[in-house]
């Protein structure tokens, strides 16, 4: 389990978690791209929006590895939000906006993304079986 409080701590936390996953994920592109970007998005969202950049608040990152895949849960100390209200950043009216791509990228790059009821905790899953493309939701990590 890792705790992150500030933006500057994201990179080290992500690299440490990727390092822990490396022995079970032979597909380096999927690990170093899909997982790394998806995890970075989740932690950044938690610090920036969940905790409102309050350094007194922590972001808890829990990693679970098993035969099925890599699961990571990112939980902040904020009040949460409704992810269904986040607009699609690929719509023509949103493409030129500087923000709003984090959740979209998590969903595009990971195999499963689930928020808890209050929206202050997100669980990301990267499967370790099957074959597909990097931007697809079902690709092998082996």
């Amino acid at each position: 389990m890792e705790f992150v409080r500030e933006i500057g701590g994201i990179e080290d936390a992500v690299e440490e978690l990727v390092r822990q996953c490396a022995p079970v994920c032979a597909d380096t592109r999927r690990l170093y791209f899909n997982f790394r970007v998806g995890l970075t998005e989740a932690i950044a969202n938690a610090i920036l929006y969940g905790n409102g950049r309050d350094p007194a608040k922590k972001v808890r990152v829990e990693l679970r590895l098993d035969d099925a895949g890599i699961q990571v849960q990112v939980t902040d100390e904020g009040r949460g939000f409704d992810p269904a209200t986040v607009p699609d950043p690929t719509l023509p009216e949103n493409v030129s906006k500087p923000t709003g791509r984090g959740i979209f990228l998590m969903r595009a790059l990971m195999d499963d993304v689930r928020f808890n009821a209050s929206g202050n905790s997100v669980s990301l899953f990267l499967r370790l079986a099957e074959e597909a493309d990097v931007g697809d939701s079902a690709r092998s990590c082996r």
Partner: protein
Amino acid sequence: MSFSIRSVGDATVVQVQGQLIVGNRQELKDLVLARLEEGARNFVIDFAGTGYIDSSGLGVLVSVSKKIREARGELRLASLNEDLQTLFELTKLDTLFQIRDDLEEALAAF
């Protein structure tokens, strides 16, 4: 240092080393806007040495692109690896930016 900046003819070339993420995006924005303030108008951001970009990094590119356009300048992106190309395609930002295969090609078009 995540970024290096140099002039090549009339163009300002920014090279991104490592990653462009939430932790260093402001540094890139400050660098580009300072050059814009000094009068530079043609910009290339070269990603030949870049491992990955997150949504904040993409956002800062959108933001500086708008500032450059407002100043009647031009921004081109160069040397995106396969992963970065995927990011731009997924987010449809490949429709917003002028993307060239490498730095030489990006500079040649100014």
